[in-house]
């Protein structure tokens, strides 16, 4: 960080002697952005390039060798498992998205419009975000005593007489996978939606009531449209996190369900890096396509 530059208007006000010694604005900006560009170049761009290259390589049982062949992709697209797994991935993403959106919107709406003092808003908001800064793995593990065969959920339901035998589908099933996703990622919806809601001009809502709208009409025709950018940002977070996940699915399904992330991690476990890389390329393209579509609805930089 060498020197801050002047905006055109400010430079005319600065002492003339100084101006000559200053670095050109673009140069300063580049120097300031350089560390960021270096890190992202080395640990994001290069790895992606590497994955694309390796996806054309071949593999034996214990090593990989450079080649230019489409075998990995042919195998990937020729296998019915791939389509099933991709379908599963979208299924998890969609259900989780719907659940986190409903819960996240309601929570944010309560915080933004029903909690009246700023201190309480901040305190309750923090209460919602603190789990984000703790370990996801621990939070997954902590569902075991709840959902297990002899867990709290089953024993409670039995003692209430709702069921006679423990439910087997509570843990290690699609249900527990999605429950864990919702548990882990709802706050990615709450935070951006709350952020947008807090910036809605309150007089718009008063105007809506004055014009005779009911609470529901105000919610649907005023608040929801104005909250859209926050919803979009939350959606991007949740969809990408769920689509790229492999550990939640593996742990919460007891290795019984698969998504694309698990397909990749299984290949890695078998040292089949080229095949893992090919799947990774397809996953990356899928995720970027989805994000590309979502980004058409929101200008992220404007919303921060």
């Amino acid at each position: 960080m060498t020197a801050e530059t002047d905006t055109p208007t400010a430079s005319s006000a600065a002492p003339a002697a100084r101006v000559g010694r200053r670095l050109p604005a673009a140069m300063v900006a580049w120097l300031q952005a350089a560390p960021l560009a270096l890190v992202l170049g080395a640990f994001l761009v290069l790895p992606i390039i590497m994955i694309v290259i390796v996806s054309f390589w071949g593999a034996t049982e214990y090593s990989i060798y450079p080649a230019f062949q489409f075998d990995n992709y042919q195998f990937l697209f020729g296998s019915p498992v791939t389509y099933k797994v991709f379908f599963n991935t979208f299924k998890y993403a969609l259900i989780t998205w719907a659940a986190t959106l409903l819960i996240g919107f309601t929570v944010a709406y309560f915080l933004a419009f029903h909690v009246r003092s700023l201190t309480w808003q901040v305190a309750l908001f923090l209460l919602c975000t603190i789990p984000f800064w703790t370990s996801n793995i621990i939070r997954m593990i902590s569902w075991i005593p709840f959902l297990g065969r002899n867990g709290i959920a089953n024993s409670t339901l039995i003692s209430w007489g709702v069921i006679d035998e423990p439910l087997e589908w509570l843990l290690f099933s699609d249900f527990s996978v999605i429950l864990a996703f919702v548990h882990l990622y709802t706050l990615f919806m709450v935070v951006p939606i709350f952020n947008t809601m807090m910036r809605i001009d309150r007089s718009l809502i008063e105007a809506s009531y004055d014009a005779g709208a009911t609470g529901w009409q105000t919610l649907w025709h005023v608040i929801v449209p104005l909250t859209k950018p926050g919803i979009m940002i939350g959606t991007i977070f949740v969809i990408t996190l769920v689509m790229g996940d492999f550990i939640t699915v593996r742990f919460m399904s007891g290795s019984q369900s698969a998504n694309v992330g698990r397909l990749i991690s299984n290949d890695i476990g078998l040292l089949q890096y080229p095949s893992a890389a090919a799947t990774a390329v397809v996953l990356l393209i899928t995720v970027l396509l989805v994000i590309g579509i979502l980004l058409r609805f929101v200008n992220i930089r404007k919303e921060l």
Partner: protein
Amino acid sequence: MERRPRSFYILAAFFALFILFLYGPTITIAILSFQGPQGGLTFPMQGTSLHWFRDLFQEQAVGDIWGSFRRSFVLGLMVMVTTVVVSVMGGLAFRKRFAGSAVLFYLIITALVIPSILVSLGVGLIFGQAGLKVHWASSGFGAQLTWTLPFGLLIMFAVFNRFDKSFEEAARDQGASAWQTIRHVVLPIIAPSLIGVALFGFTLSYDEFARTLLTAGSYNTLPLEIFGMTTNVTTPVIFALGTLTTAFSLVVIGAFLLTVWLMGRRRARQGSDAGKGMV
């Protein structure tokens, strides 16, 4: 104050349930970690004891917990400092127009949305093919930065979008150099947000699993160690570990929040307007 509508109570109940949903499971394992020596992974409690915590301190019983904790802690600090410095510099850079800023911005978004396992796999492959050894402090460190930096930068964007430029202009008009303006005007104004960036940097690194999976090398970080335990440990000792590391996270979060709060109070007391440079 006007009477609260009925919807308030319904929503408040919903919110309370959500909080219970968020914290309930963690509280449950905190209770279960005090399970008696004969107890299992679920209720009922077979008496209460510190048996499982004691187990943690006997290293041979559960692997290298303390070594991995030390590594995670050091790595967290490294990532935290780097994230703060690089994010502030990047934030300052993005206030100006420069060629390539759009590309860099989309790279930040890509880093945020790319599936973690790709970073892990790609970095691992590069190190493998270059004949370098993967190590948590080199490849692991870089891989984690791709996750913490986007958050740091998003916070900096938000901060600088609300930054009142007239403070800087005033400093310049009084003859402050560019560096003096940053050091004595910009940094004090954005300081509380920097604590936030630091909090993200440390905790996201401390808990990161997927990006470290193939980049940590032969020495595990704590999340890797814990995940290893889930496959072969079937006693409440894993709850004890979970409780301890969550407690540690909470202490760290508390310390950061306390710092922000104390900063705000000190400013209020001294009548300084430093924190008010936001619009």
